[in-house]
Structures are given as structure tokens and as C-alpha cells.
């Protein structure tokens, strides 16, 4: 659906469906004395509305309806370009939940989920997100098992148990011996708990990747995982890792993980640029490119940044320019309606070759 509306007491309007004009006319298209729109509403409770583009009649590009049933494709970094930022905390898996479902366990439960790192890394601790209910007395022990033909096999490491889970809180359970993990190899991360844990854990998403078995909590984890029941809810459990030696893996999760996974820098002029996968289909026309960075500054001190897109040797801040971020993670967006390398229309080869990221400005 595309609308071309001139906001005026006597303004024209025209609507298209899939590029075909279905309604047009003129009339009072304002709701007040102001000849502009300040809100855009799509009202249909049963329809999911997705991407939106907005144009005005100014400028030399994108100044009219497109009428080509355009697509918007979002790409996340899949490699490092020219990187200068320092690697911060990193996560194997996901440290935030995509659902609001809680997870309960019985007494003496051993819970595991499979994870496959994309980079060689060191696993230092297991993270668990508390559910809707706190439990001050439950004991929880972190465990990691090697894979054996698709099921949990030999115990690689465990750690001291913690006592108590707080509702909605992230808990870090250190392993006694950090484990070096190999990219592309599957491992099983999880925990043991001693008593019933009603709503003490949260569910990460709608998948059913968890496995459970009843194992006496005792003083240590079993050296070999027992036969386990598959198809259990995916609890919010993850690995806290180091030594990935790659910046892009810190910033390519959607949604981003905030304080659990980021790169950081304070030196003015330093820049972190990533490479992105090629567009999935050859376009006939590229109307605009947006670069988005999810960022925060570490404290109340002064710090400004700019989103960067580097095309060939031209490094541009785009429409956003220099921005002072806040201390809470938020998206910063900059638009590039043309290739900054010569301010010419985008080509597929130029788009696929760009690097984009962030620069410290002051």
C-alpha cells in the first residue's frame, strides 16, 4: 500500500495497491491548521504491518511514491572490516528472553541445551535468567557436557552451586575450569538444581531444545550425562565467553544483547567497521541504505559518535551526522539515499562491498 497525500485544506490524495491506483481525489487532508502529519496509524488488529517507507516531495531522490512493490532487507554483520574497538563481554547463545514464559523444574533436575559456537572461544561461566518467582533456597550448579552423537556425553566442567534465584535477574555461575570451545562443534550447557523450582527459570523462546533427567543433586555432576528426555522448553541459559577474537560476533544478534555483548572504545577517531552479506536478490533499483547501531555510553561523561558507511575510500556519517548517545542502549540510524562514493545511485556491487559501523567523534 502506498499513499501520496498533500496535506492542505484542499489537498490531493492517491492510494495504490501493489502499484495499481485504487483511489484518488482531493479534499481537506488536514486535521488542524497545520499542513503536516505528525502521526502515522495503520488500524487493523488482525494484520501484522511490517516495513514502512516515508517520502516527501523535496530533494532529488525518493521524492515520489515508488510504485514498484519495494522490499526492505535487513542484514547483520558477518565479518570484521577495519576494526579498532575493544571486545567487551560476549555470549554463546542469547542472554535475553524472547518470550514471557516461565519455566519450572522438579527436584533433582539436570537440564541441558545444545549450543554451537561460531568462533573458537573460552567458556567461563553459565548464565541463567530468573523466572517470575524468586526462590531463596534452591541450589543451582552450572554444568557443560561434550556432545556424543547428538546427545549429551562426557562432563567437561561444572562449578560451585549458587543458592537462590531472584525473579527476573541474570545469574552468573562460574565454571571451576574454563573450557576452550571449538567453532562448529556442539556442546551442552545447563544446570542441576536440588529442589523444586516453580517458575524460578525463564523460557528463552518457543523452541523445545531443552533436555532433562532426574539426577540426585549430591556434591558433583555426573561424569557422563544420563539418558535424557528431549523436547523440553528452551530455558534462558547461555554461556559467557571470551577470546572470540572477532568484533562482529558482539554486535550481530537481533535483538542486540546490550550489556551482555558489546564492543567499546573511548579514543577519538577510532572506528569499528563490519562487512555484511550480499543482498539476497539482484535489485533493479536501490532506493536507500540505512546503517543502524545499537549503542550506549559507559557513564555520564561527554562522548559523541557517528554511524559510518565506507564505500570504496569514502567514509560517510550519512544523514545522522554526529550524535551524543545516552547511557541506555538505543538504536542510532543514519540514511544513505545515494552511494557516498561520488553521490551516485547505489549499485549492487557497491552495496555489497561497503563496510559500516561506528566512529568515536569526541
Amino acid at each position: 500500500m502506498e499513499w501520496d497525500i498533500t496535506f492542505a485544506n484542499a489537498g490531493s490524495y492517491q492510494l495504490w495497491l501493489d502499484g495499481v491506483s485504487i483511489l484518488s481525489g482531493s479534499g481537506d487532508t488536514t486535521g488542524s491548521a497545520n499542513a503536516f502529519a505528525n502521526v502515522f496509524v495503520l488500524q487493523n488488529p488482525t494484520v501484522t504491518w511490517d516495513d514502512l517507507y516515508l517520502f516527501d516531495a523535496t530533494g532529488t531522490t525518493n521524492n515520489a511514491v515508488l510504485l514498484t512493490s519495494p522490499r526492505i532487507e535487513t542484514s547483520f554483520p558477518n565479518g570484521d572490516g577495519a576494526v579498532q574497538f575493544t571486545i567487551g563481554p560476549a555470549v554463546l547463545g542469547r542472554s535475553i528472553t524472547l518470550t514471557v514464559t516461565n519455566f519450572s523444574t522438579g527436584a533433582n533436575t539436570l537440564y541441558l541445551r545444545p549450543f554451537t559456537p561460531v568462533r573458537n572461544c573460552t567458556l567461563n561461566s553459565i548464565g541463567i535468567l530468573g523466572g517470575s518467582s524468586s526462590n531463596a533456597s534452591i541450589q543451582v550448579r552450572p554444568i557443560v557436557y561434550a556432545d556424543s552423537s547428538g546427545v549429551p556425553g562426557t562432563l567437561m566442567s561444572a562449578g560451585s552451586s549458587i543458592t537462590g534465584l531472584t525473579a527476573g535477574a541474570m545469574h552468573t555461575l562460574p565454571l571451576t575450569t574454563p573450557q576452550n570451545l571449538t567453532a562448529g562443534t556442539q556442546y551442552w550447557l545447563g544446570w542441576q538444581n536440588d529442589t523444586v523450582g516453580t517458575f524460578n527459570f525463564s523460557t528463552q523462546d518457543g523452541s523445545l531444545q531443552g533436555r532433562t533427567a532426574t539426577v540426585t543433586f549430591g556434591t558433583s555432576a555426573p561424569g557422563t550425562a544420563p539418558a535424557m528426555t528431549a523436547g523440553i522448553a528452551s530455558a534462558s541459559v547461555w554461556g559467557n565467553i571470551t577470546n572470540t577474537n572477532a568484533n562482529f560476533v558482539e554486535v550481530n544478534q537481533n535483538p542486540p544483547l546490550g550489556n551482555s555483548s558489546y564492543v567499546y572504545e573511548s579514543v577519538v577517531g577510532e572506528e569499528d567497521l563490519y562487512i555484511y552479506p550480499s543482498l539476497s536478490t539482484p535489485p533493479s533499483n536501490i532506493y536507500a541504505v540505512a546503517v543502524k547501531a545499537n549503542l550506549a555510553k559507559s557513564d555520564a561523561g561527554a562522548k559523541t559518535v557517528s554511524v559510518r558507511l565506507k564505500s570504496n575510500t569514502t567514509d560517510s556519517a550519512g544523514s545522522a551526522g554526529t550524535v551524543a548517545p545516552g547511557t541506555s542502549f538505543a538504536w542510532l540510524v543514519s540514511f544513505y539515499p545515494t552511494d557516498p562514493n561520488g553521490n551516485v545511485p547505489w549499485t549492487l556491487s557497491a552495496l555489497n562491498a561497503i563496510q559500516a559501523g561506528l566512529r568515536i567523534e569526541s
Partner: protein
Amino acid sequence: MTDARVAGAARETIFATPASISLAGVVIETLVFDPTATKLATVVREVLMEAPDLPAVGQTAVTVNST
């Protein structure tokens, strides 16, 4: 010293795809000679094709591969 922290990065591209023809179905209908009748009425072959390039009404073309 205050530092800036980046937790996420993404590239979004809005673009049009070239016009293409989607073949949604092929039908051959043949009215055959009926031996009990005396005349062959006609023989028809119909090829049914979707109009090029336009998604069906009700589909939203901009939702593909986007978040």
C-alpha cells in the same frame, strides 16, 4: 574515561526487484469427440498464467526478508 559501547549493528536496504513472470498454473482443457454424437464441437487449449510481477492482493510485498 567514558567509552561508547556498541551492542548491535545492521544494514537495511530498500530496493525493487526486476519484473518477472510467475507461472502459477498450466491447464490444458480438451473437449473430445463424443462417439455418440455426430460432430466435433471444438478443441480448446488454455494456458493460465498469473499477471507478471504483481503479488497477489492481500500479500504485502515489503515484508519479505525484513525484521
